[in-house]
């Protein structure tokens, strides 16, 4: 018998469930690993949020002293680091882990054990970084970008900065390993009939997001290794006195750092592209245009890294200015297509749909202010002011949060078999929407009036009112997040049963049970379009009877 031809049978104990935490410790099931990613990332988000509330208190009034200057530096450094690198970049990996194999009809990912290893490396990286709170001197205080010389051993002593480097290096390795796994899964494990151009747009978002991770994360991992060598082993990569250059670090950091924005946001585009057609009762408008917009944005994201370095006088400004403005084209296509999908549709304003509409609004504000920053004269004027802080919080935070929460409300029934409460969901949505805009819209004014970022205190009284408003807004947001947490726990125990397809969804995950079985599908329908679940519901009656 040719043994290689025979598919391996599952071992007898393969589907034995173990109790509680042990099950999660040894699991290689993509759904459980996805849940682990989502919970860890959300815990990191809560931690980063608490840090933000603390330094918003410090900034609430001029002269207010909640913490010392160095503590302030440490808190905004760790806030930025954990929010951008350990929450925003990872929560989409969690959602992708859970949903993407379901959407392409696979029983699991291509490398399940490697998938588990990727999660554990991410968790250990996070713990190593956060352990810096317990060492002498405390955590890193260089800002989340860790530019030398602010981050070198002459100006920042103690092991806090080194733990920051090691923690991020581990998370970077985890991301690369995870990307190899997810890209291979999408390329090689689609169910027969699921061609690339029949994949759901969320899966496209995950594919492009993971491709960017594959090409961008090696740059930051290299930069971190060089920084560690500079600090601990006498190298001089970034030290001009020894022939190095701090600008080299900035190039490497931003070659990763700008694509990172799209690592965060492209899966969110995918989520919005799933939610909008379902709650507009229309097919997505311009499916292929949306796919190519994904690639257009991803490609351009690798050509704009130095727009973060306009004021270094070490780059060719017109090249980066032009490409930065060009990004608005594929992004505009997406917004046009989402509005086109809603146009004439029977829109139902459920919480996921409200989140999707809010996403379009805040991303538009963030995108337009980004085009202003792409213009070098304006960038020179507002560089390193609160205008930049407001801009990237609209792009990175608001857009991410509304899409992420929209995704949670949309797929929570699939993951748990229960619906989140709509009433609490609406409270959560409005508190978050109002709180966010109160917090960050005034920061555009602060920036235009010249308030620099990364200062613990400020003398001018005219900035005080804006800062007070901003701090009040941040606490409104926090109340909104608490409402969501309450909703989560209440609905998990007493939520309304959802059934397999509560929203009448389009993609393949809505065909299986809620929650899905260990092997994902008992049966898979034939795939004839990018909306297999819709096709299944609306197939001709004669065909349905024949089955």
């Amino acid at each position, binding site marked *: *018998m040719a*043994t290689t031809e*025979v*598919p*391996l*049978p*599952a*071992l007898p*104990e*393969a589907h034995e469930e173990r109790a509680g935490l042990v*099950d999660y*410790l*040894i*699991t*290689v099931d993509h759904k459980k690993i996805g849940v682990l990613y989502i919970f860890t990332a959300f815990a990191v988000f809560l931690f980063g949020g608490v840090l933000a509330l603390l330094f918003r208190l410090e900034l609430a009034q001029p002269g207010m002293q909640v913490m010392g200057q160095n503590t302030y530096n440490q808190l905004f450094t760790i806030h930025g680091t954990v929010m951008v690198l350990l929450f925003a970049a990872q929560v989409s990996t969690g959602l992708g882990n859970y949903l993407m194999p379901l959407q392409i009809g*696979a*029983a699991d990912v291509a490398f*399940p*054990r490697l998938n*588990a*290893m990727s999660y*554990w490396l991410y968790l*250990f990286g996070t713990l*190593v970084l956060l352990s810096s709170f317990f060492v002498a001197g405390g955590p890193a205080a260089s800002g989340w970008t860790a530019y030398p010389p602010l981050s070198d051993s002459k100006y920042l002593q103690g*092991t806090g900065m*080194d733990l920051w480097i*090691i923690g991020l290096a*581990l998370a970077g390795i985890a991301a690369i390993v995870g990307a190899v796994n997810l890209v291979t899964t999408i390329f090689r*494990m689609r*169910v*027969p*009939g699921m*061609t*690339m151009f*029949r994949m759901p747009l969320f899966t496209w978002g995950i*594919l492009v997001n993971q*491709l960017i991770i*594959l*090409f961008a994360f090696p740059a930051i991992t290299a930069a971190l290794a060089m920084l*560690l060598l500079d600090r601990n082993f006498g190298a001089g990569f970034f030290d001009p006195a020894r022939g190095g250059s701090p600008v080299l670090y900035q*190039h*490497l950091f931003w*070659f990763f750092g700008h694509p990172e924005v799209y690592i965060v946001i492209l899966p969110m585009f995918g989520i919005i592209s799933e939610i909008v057609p379902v709650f507009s009762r229309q097919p997505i408008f311009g499916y*292929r245009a949306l796919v*190519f917009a994904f*690639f257009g944005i*991803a*490609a351009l994201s*690798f*050509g704009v890294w*130095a727009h973060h370095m306009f004021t270094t006088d070490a*780059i*060719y400004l017109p*090249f980066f200015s032009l490409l930065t403005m060009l990004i608005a084209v594929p992004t505009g296509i997406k917004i046009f297509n989402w509005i086109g999908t809603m146009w004439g549709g029977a829109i139902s304003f459920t919480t996921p749909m409200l989140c999707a509409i809010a996403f379009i609004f805040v991303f538009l504000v963030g995108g337009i202010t980004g085009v202003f920053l792409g213009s070098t004269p304006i960038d020179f004027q507002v560089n390193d002011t609160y205008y930049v802080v407001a801009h990237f919080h609209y792009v990175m935070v608001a857009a991410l949060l509304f899409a992420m929460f929209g995704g949670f409300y949309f797929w929570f029934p699939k993951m748990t078999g229960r619906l989140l409460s709509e009433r609490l969901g609406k409270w959560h949505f409005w508190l978050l929407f109002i709180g966010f805009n109160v917090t960050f819209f005034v920061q555009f004014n602060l920036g235009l009036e010249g308030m620099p970022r990364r200062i613990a205190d400020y003398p001018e009284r005219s900035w005080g009112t804006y800062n007070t408003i901003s701090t009040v807004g941040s606490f409104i947001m926090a109340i909104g997040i608490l409402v969501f947490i309450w909703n989560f726990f209440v609905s998990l125990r007493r939520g309304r049963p959802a059934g397999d397809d509560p929203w009448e969804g389009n993609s393949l995950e809505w065909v299986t049970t809620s929650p899905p079985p*260990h*092997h994902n599908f008992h049966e*898979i329908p*034939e*795939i*004839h379009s990018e909306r297999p679940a819709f096709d299944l519901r609306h197939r001709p009656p004669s065909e349905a009877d024949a089955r």
Partner: protein
Amino acid sequence: MTDEAAVLLRVSLFGFVSGIIYWFVSYEPLGTVALLLLGAGPGFAGLILVQAHRRQGGAAESRGDTLRRLAGIPPPDPPGPEDLRDDDLGVLPLPTIWPFATSLGLAIMLTGLIYGLWLIVLGGGIAAYGTWGWLAAINRENRYGRIQAEQPPANPGPDPDRADG
């Protein structure tokens, strides 16, 4: 050419073209190298996929179709399969502690770069043990699979060719 290879080759093309343009407008070496590497890495992976597709006897494509696919205009999607009952949906691996152990070892080993050699040795040992356990677990699952495949079915039923019944 498959759509997967076309995706990678498109990224590669962007890397090479933008790298060349960037060099001539800026003469800045680091960004140029980064963009050219962005061209080289996916290009290499894309060519491997093209070659693998050919080796597996994939349908040959005219040059025009290849160029159209690269430009993002693939031929119309084929119809879906008629019956999925015979398709193997894969075998799921067993739960295992080894990815956790290997990751823990790697984390300790890297932290040793700050705190000293003893942590590197300890972490390296745990990572090596974890890797060994990982490979042994895969080997065990594969061996079990082979044994199952080589065994006759538990209840083969009557053989119609046997005269003595």
